[in-house]
């Protein structure tokens, strides 16, 4: 979230799309209700189903699965045509006026941007750049060829936005084909209804109003597509166009699917990141310096503007991270132990791990806090992959589908005997038996205490990991090895090395200083050995450590700030500065400089977050200003300080995205529509690859897979876990498939009858829930059915063990296809056929 849960209460307009917060985030959803109750805010819900969120909405439109970019692209077209954007914001705080490379070409009918290489199914993104002068070679992602030209240091710029090569004009041209008529044909939302939605959402900028704010809330309904990243970008662009980013009640807000997913991401949950979103070293970097050179950006902006370019501090964060890892063993002489770090040579994302296991490359798997068989796409492939593994270690509180993959439905006694995989099941502690911090969607680190002791025979996760580490280290100590140093020299200074306290770990993550230091501006001093107060104190000379620079400030000399529980909110804006701790530096709304106009005055005086104080010549505010504190508005420093441009990117230049600088509508990989109506010559995303194992099959209308299927969660259950809990089982006892009344009538089906849903990969059997909440749609003139299946059931659980359900995991159906940027699988839209079972 750029903003936070509580902040939603400041919104005047709320768009929920690709998410269902009322069902999946009911506690956070209270703030939507607060906005409605206290500000008369309007809630727009666009979803393939009439969800519980839709039930309290003011406007609902049923959309075809996977056509969000068509919807949002049309919305961009609408808001430009009707001048529902914030011009001052757009010109000064975004790259709308930046001139784009002459060679850059929009996809138009071809459906691909300039630079597409059909052989490698990837783009040479050299032309996705600004016109200008100066610059250095740009950053490359792992696996991408390095040596792209960099962003120009001085960017050509047209503040009138009239130049036909400026971002704004290109944007206008790109989405000019996303007309309401086309949107209707693609998404299935009738033109009139669509225009109502556009008008309602953009009404906050009617007649040049810049006071009101709209927020966009999304979740996995946007991310889990082969164009998931671009779904979200479209929303970000809309929010930039309307000037809603950085403002209380605005922003682009991802609702995380678990209590600590934000924390997992922050702490390098993804293979191409190190903690704090530092990019991992790749073999081509060669040295620490080479690595730093590649990942440290330089400013790129119109000549007379300023850019903070905060990532220029990358070396400070990286050196401090290495000091946290290796302590005294990381020295300037040994390049801060750069050699100890693994260099990431290819894509190690989730789906690839399983693909590699299937292909015999990955031999073993540790599965902690997740049910690997169930959470990936194509469960059969995952089960087949585990059959080929040598071993799997599962840390869980219940026997789950992963630890019992060998008895998944369809495996015969004979086959079972042939499975040679050794399964180690480690009884873990449940969430209520552990302390530690959760980082929520709002980036708040909140400490929780253990409510119960860990049951006898079970261990905490960190205890298990620590003991594995200590044993491994012992082996290296005894037997040596090819390269023992990265293990032997790892810092492990915990009071209880075999079960480190998580408070100590958080303290370590925050980091400390090894030498006395003084802030030249404030004259504040810290002593050697003290906790670092914030990442502004981090140094690249080895005198500081920090396990994650963005968490720097969570555990200072003042103690564990994540434990703070002061509900006071003096501003009334939901800042709650002394409740828990929010990264970065306890800031609640990111980019909050943009809540003021160019002159540093809040767009809306009733929602003052930060402002320029002429008297002190500093930025002040009720929130921590996300800005250089003494940068005078005259300097025209951009509010988006993490971008080298200093402004928000409506155009995503160079290596930012694998599939295009502007989001473009493509059909999901499995789609009932044969042509991409908006870009006729390119049906699917051109850079999306299909996997090649025998288990990877893809269905099409020709093979009889005509029904669109989407998957989701229910309020009553939590993933594949709560089917073990009688209360949850009582609430929703068994799996079901939601289908429309029209489809049921056509099939002669009554609610409660069992149906079989099959995709090219597998079949799922459950009872039909016949409902008015999913309707048949007209897509490009053709009647199309959508169905939906909640994901929560498998072959282990109370009802499953009693033989009361069909025991089929829903991801038997979903295809192995991933987003090219985030590598998230396309769980949300694929093709099936439906018959009575």
């Amino acid at each position: 979230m750029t903003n936070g849960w509580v902040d939603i209460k400041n919104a005047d307009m709320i768009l929920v799309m690709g998410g269902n917060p009322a069902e999946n985030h009911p506690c956070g959803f209270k703030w939507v209700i607060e906005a409605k109750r206290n500000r008369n805010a309007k809630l727009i819900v666009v979803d393939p189903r009439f969800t519980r969120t839709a039930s309290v909405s003011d406007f609902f439109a049923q959309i075809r699965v996977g056509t969000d970019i068509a919807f949002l692209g049309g919305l961009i077209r609408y808001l430009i045509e009707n001048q529902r954007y914030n011009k001052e914001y757009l010109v000064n705080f975004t790259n709308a006026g930046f001139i784009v490379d002459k060679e850059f070409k929009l996809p138009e009918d071809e459906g691909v941007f300039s630079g597409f290489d059909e052989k490698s199914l990837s783009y040479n993104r050299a032309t996705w750049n600004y016109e200008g002068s100066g610059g250095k070679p740009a950053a490359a992602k792992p696996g991408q060829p390095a040596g792209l030209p960099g962003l120009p240091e001085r960017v050509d710029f047209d503040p009138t936005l009239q130049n036909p090569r400026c971002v704004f004009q290109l944007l206008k041209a790109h989405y000019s084909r996303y007309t309401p008529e086309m949107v209707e044909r693609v998404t299935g939302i009738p033109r009139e209804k669509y225009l109502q939605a556009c008008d309602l959402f953009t009404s906050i900028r009617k007649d040049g109003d810049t006071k009101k704010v709209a927020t966009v809330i999304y979740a996995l309904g946007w991310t889990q597509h082969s164009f998931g990243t671009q779904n979200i970008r479209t929303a970000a662009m809309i929010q930039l166009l309307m000037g809603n980013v950085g403002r209380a009640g605005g922003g682009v807000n991802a609702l995380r699917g678990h209590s600590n997913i934000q924390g997992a991401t922050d702490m390098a949950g993804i293979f191409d990141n190190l903690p704090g979103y530092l990019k991992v070293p790749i073999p081509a970097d060669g040295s620490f310096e080479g690595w730093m050179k590649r990942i440290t950006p330089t400013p790129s902006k119109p000549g007379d503007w300023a850019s903070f370019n905060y990532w220029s501090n990358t070396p400070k964060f990286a050196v401090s991270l290495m000091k946290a890892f290796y302590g005294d063993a990381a020295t300037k002489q040994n390049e801060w132990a750069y050699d100890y770090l693994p260099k990431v040579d290819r894509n190690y994302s989730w789906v690839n791990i399983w693909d590699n296991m299937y292909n015999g490359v990955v031999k073993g798997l540790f599965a902690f806090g997740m049910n690997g068989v169930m959470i990936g796409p194509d469960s059969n492939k995952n089960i087949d992959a585990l059959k080929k593994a040598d071993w799997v270690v599962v840390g869980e509180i219940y026997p789950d589908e992963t630890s019992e993959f060998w008895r998944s439905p369809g495996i015969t006694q004979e086959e079972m005997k042939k499975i040679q995989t050794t399964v180690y099941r480690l009884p873990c502690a449940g969430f209520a038996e552990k302390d530690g911090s959760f980082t929520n969607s709002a980036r708040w680190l909140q400490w929780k205490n253990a409510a119960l002791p860990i049951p006898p025979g079970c261990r905490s996760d960190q205890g298990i990991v620590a003991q594995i580490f200590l044993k491994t280290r012992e082996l290296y100590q005894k037997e040596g090895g090819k390269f023992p140093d990265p293990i032997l020299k790892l810092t492990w200074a915990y009071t209880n090395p075999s079960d480190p306290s998580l408070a100590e770990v958080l303290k370590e993550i925050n980091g400390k200083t090894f030498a006395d230091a003084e802030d030249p501006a404030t004259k504040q001093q810290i002593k050697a050995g003290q906790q670092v107060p914030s990442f502004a104190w981090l140094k690249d000379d080895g005198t500081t450590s920090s396990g994650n620079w963005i968490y720097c400030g969570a555990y200072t000399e003042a103690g564990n700030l994540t434990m703070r529980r002061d509900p006071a909110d003096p501003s009334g804006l939901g800042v709650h500065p002394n409740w828990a701790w929010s990264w970065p530096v306890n800031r609640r709304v990111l980019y909050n400089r943009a809540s003021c106009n160019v002159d540093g005055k809040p767009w809306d005086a009733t929602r003052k977050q930060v402002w320029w104080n002429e008297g002190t010549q500093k930025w002040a505010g009720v929130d921590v200003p996300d800005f250089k504190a003494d940068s005078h508005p005259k300097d025209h420093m951009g509010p988006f300080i993490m971008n080298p441009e200093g402004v928000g990117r409506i155009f995503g230049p160079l290596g930012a995205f694998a599939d295009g600088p502007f989001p473009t509508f493509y059909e999901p990989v499995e789609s009932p529509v044969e042509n991409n109506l908006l870009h006729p010559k390119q049906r699917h995303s051109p850079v999306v690859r299909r996997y090649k194992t025998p288990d990877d099959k893809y269905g099409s209308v020709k093979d009889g897979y005509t029904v669109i299927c989407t998957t989701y969660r229910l309020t009553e259950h939590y993933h594949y876990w709560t089917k073990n809990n009688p209360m949850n089982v009582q609430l929703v006892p068994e799996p079901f498939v939601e289908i429309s009344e029209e489809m049921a009538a056509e099939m002669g089906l009554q609610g409660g009858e069992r149906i079989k849903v099959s995709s090219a990969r597998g079949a799922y059997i459950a009872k039909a829930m016949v409902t008015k909440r999913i309707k048949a749609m007209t897509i490009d003139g053709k009647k199309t059915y959508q169905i939906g299946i909640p994901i929560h059931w498998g072959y282990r659980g109370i009802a499953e063990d009693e033989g009361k359900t069909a025991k089929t995991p829903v991801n038997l159906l979903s295809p192995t296809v991933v987003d090219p940027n985030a590598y998230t699988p396309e769980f949300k839209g694929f093709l099936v056929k439906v018959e009575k079972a």
Partner: protein
Amino acid sequence: MSQATLRIQKISAHSGTVPGEDTQRQYQVCKLVDTTTCIGCKACEVACVEWNDMPFSPTAFGNTYQTMPETRWNYWNLILFNEHEREDGTLQWLMRKHQCMHCAEPGCLEACPADGAIVQYTNGIVDFQQANCIGCGYCITGCPFNIPKFNNVTKRMYKCSLCADRVSEGLEPACIKSCPTGCLHFGSKDDMTELAGIRAKQLRDHYGYDKAGVYDPPGVGGTGVIYVLHDATQPELYGGLPSNPSIPLAVKFWKHPLKWLGNIAMVGGLIGLFVHYLKFGPKAREEADLAPKGGA
């Protein structure tokens, strides 16, 4: 809520005076359920089961998100889900938290034949005292909302107690505590009525629900649970909420005119027979008297 000993202002089938009548300054408590902000998350259902420590019972798929068709003796709080297509073709998915309404004039208490099995405290909470319950089920007949439920093992009736135990300690009921959206409120009847009125007005003024209103049916003297409805003219849409509930006529007739008629008739009959004996005596004093006069 003030902390106060629960005292009884109404008591079922009691032949004497009511112990708590006018003995407290207690005000009537009330739950406000704003159906327009209910998201059907069932937190209240879970909180109810957990707080009251009720055993689980099996449920079955019923082509709906609703947990079970109606409340059970061990499931006092149930969100009713109803899909409703409006005339303009738009869909409403109405969710209503269904539980005991804590009527000011409770039909269950009216119908109950067991002394002290059903009581109404001075704060308005209608509570079943299972120790006194005889399991006759007349409360089912008396209730216009289908609330009291029978336990076949204990042979007693159960229903929502409005967490009388919590309320007497100054806490809100468990369902209120658990509600994530603030759709549930708890306070004095006056405050809740005011709050509901404000919300209904907001719905009319800003959200286009011209018929939004508050459900506080006068037929049962008003209720300790009031609803804000999108369309107060059609409460039936919300899982059969009766539009004008009252204690069933049959129960009223049974418990009032018929009862007095019957009592008078029975006492009158006894007196009549006694008087008859006084006046006419037995048809024959001795067996011998039976012989026909004049003899044969």
